[in-house]
């Protein structure tokens, strides 16, 4: 049996979700307003670190229109505090209360909630809550936080060091001591945040008659949120429904459980009224998870021919005030040392990571997680080594890539890389760029006194992670499986239901393509449902570039099971051998005799008619649920190339060209893949050139508006040139590899290397991101920048 329908997997199909989004008919959380709705607003701490001496909500409660004011103590009676657990040996568990209990640990932490007839009145109520704080010393700098005499954030741990982890292979000290060349650097990747265009938000409703709590949330992970809410609120899981309908971007920042989700759910249970909270942008910049804030001291040792012999690194991460659920404070620093060796053969490796708590919004996953920093460091070291050895930077990479004969390759941090096109992406990137011509133009520009640079970055990441390892190191929550239910209704149309959620990735389209192709149906016969724990089989959500691989694989398995049953029924109805049947456009017919066939509608009709029309002993019905576990996961890789120019007067960096050659395995929809790359690259370019969360020494956020935290506008990056090397994954069903994050992994490194290349005649290296004009000015030999210093 086979499908004759034109190939859907690989087709540039227009997205099925777009019409509603283009016409203003989407259903984001804030679009729902059930009868009796109350609006919540959160009082947030103005202090970075303070004891709450007194909290008096009386005046707020007296305000007309205010239904309730909840304090930390009241919410603590309704819920348990969140404790993100880890099996890591050197990890100290801490509590994250939904509303502050006794003290606050960052400016912006939620202290109380007002629930009122409108958001306007709820905010009026916030102004009437009296709080006496006793300020404590702020812990604002990660290195100082580990020193003697630093104030302790979490008394229960006895230290501000929340975690440490080491990976070691071989004898790196001897390798470095005996190496021909060693390059070292202290790299600084500043703090970032995702800035989803839709702020976070949630709406909880409790139905007394059924005892059902429904939480609509702008989350990537309805399944994870449902599981933990059941635990925190002490409700049976089947009484909680979490729905993530249309979600306005996530990028990892909406994959964690947030205090507001717990509080709003508890308030709905308490008040027996629907309660909604929608974050404003100020709250988003204050209290949504932040990312990537790390200091990396690293050394790369090479032989005289450029062969890597060893890599050693110490990573220190500012994990903020709390360990975020479920990923824990370990996710960023431990991912950084997991992926630092990149796509290269590194025989000797030792890297140590530490996570330090400070008075800042918690660190959480953000597009790339650890890998943007890892690529910035490793690729920066590779370019430094190339300069020292007098080798071309692309040639140095080609000499060190893991080669086809090395796969499967176990990296020194323990990750297994399946066959992937590292060398191919570099060769294609060089060719697309016109590398020699680009160098010639650069030489010409330099002769004219212009600062033009060419930069490359190659990386590999692990996507579609199965049950072999947790998505976040040491995390006990299982993230290795997803499921699909494929259901044919009596009319022959198909509903495919997934536990993942889509928040811009176009999964309604990609997964429909996968299922329709597997079943031999036209695309419009398949409707994808996702993001609703009451409708879907068990799943956790969309994060870590997993949904194309895990949900795609589950969709293939479930679609295949239904197709096989449909063929058996068709063979029975046609009195033919199932092996002789072919399916084309939703019609199953005997090969070579197209007139002898039945439609899916007829097959489904028979399936639901029962034994009278079915083969003897066959169970009625036409649907299947299948789970998929890719076990190890699969490698995704790319090479990025950038040409930049640095303005000699303003030190502004202009990106002249940007090339990506990526290998995400078998492509489901090139339109969507390219859109993901474009968006990822521009986020990475923002990280490289613009974006930085800044706190002052007192722990006050200085970037609390979008005038201060600068995200890229349409003018930052020119038209990107994106090419594909399709090496089907040998380990994942369908051959798919995840690709939602890669753009953001490669871009900071490629742009940093291009800027360093532009400035190499001046002897300036780029060791800190973002590369602002101010930082470049201070780095100039004649600027006196060394004396003026900069924030550490």
């Amino acid at each position, binding site marked *: 049996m086979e499908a004759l329908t034109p190939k859907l997997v690989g087709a540039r199909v227009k997205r099925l979700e777009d019409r509603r989004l283009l*016409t203003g008919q989407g259903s984001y959380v804030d679009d729902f307003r059930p009868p009796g709705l109350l609006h919540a607003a959160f009082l947030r701490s103005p202090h970075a670190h303070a004891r709450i001496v007194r909290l008096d909500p009386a005046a707020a409660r007296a305000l007309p229109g205010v239904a309730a004011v909840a304090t930390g103590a009241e919410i603590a009676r309704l819920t348990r505090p969140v404790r993100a657990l880890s099996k890591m040996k050197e990890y100290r568990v801490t509590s994250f209360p939904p509303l502050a209990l006794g003290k606050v640990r960052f400016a912006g932490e939620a202290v109380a909630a007002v629930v009122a007839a409108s958001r306007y009145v709820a905010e009026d109520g916030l102004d009437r809550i009296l709080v006496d704080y006793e300020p404590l010393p702020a812990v604002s700098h990660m290195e100082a936080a580990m020193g003697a005499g630093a104030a302790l954030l979490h008394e229960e741990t006895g230290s501000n060091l929340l975690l440490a982890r080491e990976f070691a292979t071989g004898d790196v000290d001897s390798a470095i001591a005996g190496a021909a060349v060693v390059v070292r650097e202290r790299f600084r990747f500043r703090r970032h945040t995702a800035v*989803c265009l839709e702020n976070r938000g949630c709406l909880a409703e409790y139905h007394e008659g059924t005892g059902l709590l429904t939480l609509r949330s702008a989350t990537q992970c309805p399944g994870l949120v449902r599981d933990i809410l059941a635990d925190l609120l002490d409700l049976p899981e089947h009484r909680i429904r979490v729905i993530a309908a249309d979600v306005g*971007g996530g990028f990892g920042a909406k994959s964690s459980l947030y205090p507001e989700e717990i509080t709003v759910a508890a308030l709905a249970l308490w008040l027996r009224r629907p309660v909604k909270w929608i974050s404003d942008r100020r709250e988003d910049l204050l209290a949504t998870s932040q990312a990537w804030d790390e200091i990396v001291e690293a050394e790369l040792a090479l032989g005289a021919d450029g062969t890597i012999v060893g890599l050693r690194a110490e990573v220190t991460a500012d994990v903020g005030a709390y360990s975020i659920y479920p990923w824990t404070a370990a996710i960023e620093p431990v991912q950084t040392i997991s992926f630092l060796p990149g796509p290269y053969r590194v025989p000797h490796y030792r890297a140590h990571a530490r996570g330090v708590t400070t008075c800042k919004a918690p660190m959480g996953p953000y597009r790339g997680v650890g890998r943007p920093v890892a690529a910035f460091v490793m690729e920066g070291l590779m370019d430094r080594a190339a300069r020292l050895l007098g080798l071309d930077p692309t040639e140095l990479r080609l000499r060190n890539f893991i080669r086809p004969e090395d796969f499967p390759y176990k990296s020194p941090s323990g990750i297994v890389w399946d066959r992937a096109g590292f060398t191919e992406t570099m060769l294609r990137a060089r060719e697309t760029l016109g590398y020699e011509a680009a160098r010639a133009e650069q030489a010409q520009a330099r002769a004219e006194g212009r600062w033009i640079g060419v930069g490359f970055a190659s990386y590999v990441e692990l996507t579609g992670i199965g049950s072999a390892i947790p998505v976040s190191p040491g995390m006990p929550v299982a993230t290795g499986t997803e499921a699909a239910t494929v259901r044919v209704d009596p009319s022959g149309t198909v509903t495919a239901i997934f536990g993942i959620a889509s928040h811009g990735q176009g999964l309604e389209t990609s997964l429909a393509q996968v299922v329709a192709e597997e079943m031999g149906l036209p695309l419009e016969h398949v409707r994808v449902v996702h993001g609703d724990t009451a409708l879907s089989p068990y799943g956790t959500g969309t994060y870590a570039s997993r949904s194309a691989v895990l949900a795609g694989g589950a969709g293939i398995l479930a679609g295949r099971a239904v197709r096989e049953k449909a063929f058996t029924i068709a063979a029975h109805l046609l009195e033919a051998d199932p092996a002789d049947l072919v399916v084309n456009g939703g019609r199953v017919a005997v090969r070579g005799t197209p007139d002898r066939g039945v439609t899916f509608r007829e097959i489904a009709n028979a399936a639901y008619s029962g034994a009278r029309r079915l083969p003897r002993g066959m169970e009625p019905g036409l649907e299947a649920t299948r789970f998929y576990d890719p076990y190890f996961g699969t490698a995704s890789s790319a090479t990025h190339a950038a040409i930049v120019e640095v303005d000699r007067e303003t030190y502004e960096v202009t990106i002249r060209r940007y090339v990506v050659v990526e290998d995400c395995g078998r492509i489901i929809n090139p339109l969507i893949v390219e859109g993901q790359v474009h968006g990822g690259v521009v986020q990475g370019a923002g990280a490289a050139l613009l974006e930085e969360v800044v706190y002052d020494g007192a722990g006050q956020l200085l970037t609390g508006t979008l005038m201060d935290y600068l995200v890229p506008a349409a003018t930052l990056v020119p038209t990107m040139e994106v090419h594909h090397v399709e090496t089907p994954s040998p380990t994942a069903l369908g051959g798919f590899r995840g690709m939602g994050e890669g753009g953001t992994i490669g871009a900071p490194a490629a742009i940093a290397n291009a800027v360093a290349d532009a400035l190499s005649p001046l002897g300036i290296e780029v060791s800190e991101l973002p590369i602002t004009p101010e930082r470049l000015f201070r780095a100039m030999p004649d600027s006196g920048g060394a004396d003026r210093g900069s924030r550490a």
Partner: protein
Amino acid sequence: MAGPRTIHLTVNGAPREGWVEPRKLLVDFIREDLGLTGTHVGCEHGICGACTVLVNGEAARSCLMLAVQAAGAEVLTVEGLARDGTLHPLQEAFWEHHGLQCGFCTPGMLLTACDFLKDNPSPTEAEIREALSAVLCRCTGYQGIIKAVQAAAPKLRDAR
């Protein structure tokens, strides 16, 4: 605080009436009182542009206007772009060229482009990038959006 007052305005061609507190933002009035939830709130300080609507034919940030300021005005929101189920050429082009992912900035992006192409029917790519830098998109890297506006421009010119 001043009490609520009545306002009259035209929204997507239809006369509408509101009873609003003077402090109520135009975007909250559009979303909550008129039930037109296609207009989105992204920052409430005039930077992101997600809430952009046309007020008397000109792009305006509805998070920086009070509803009472729109009294007597003609307002066009994303719900008013398609006519009788036929998408506006910009909507068609955004669909064709993958000019949206999460869809949250899309209404503001469409109305900003709509206003821009009225003033500049034959723009260069650089001019489109400059004009659309009024609206932030975090998903697309703008590439599909730029292509979409380039593709829609001649269709809108021809339709005039």
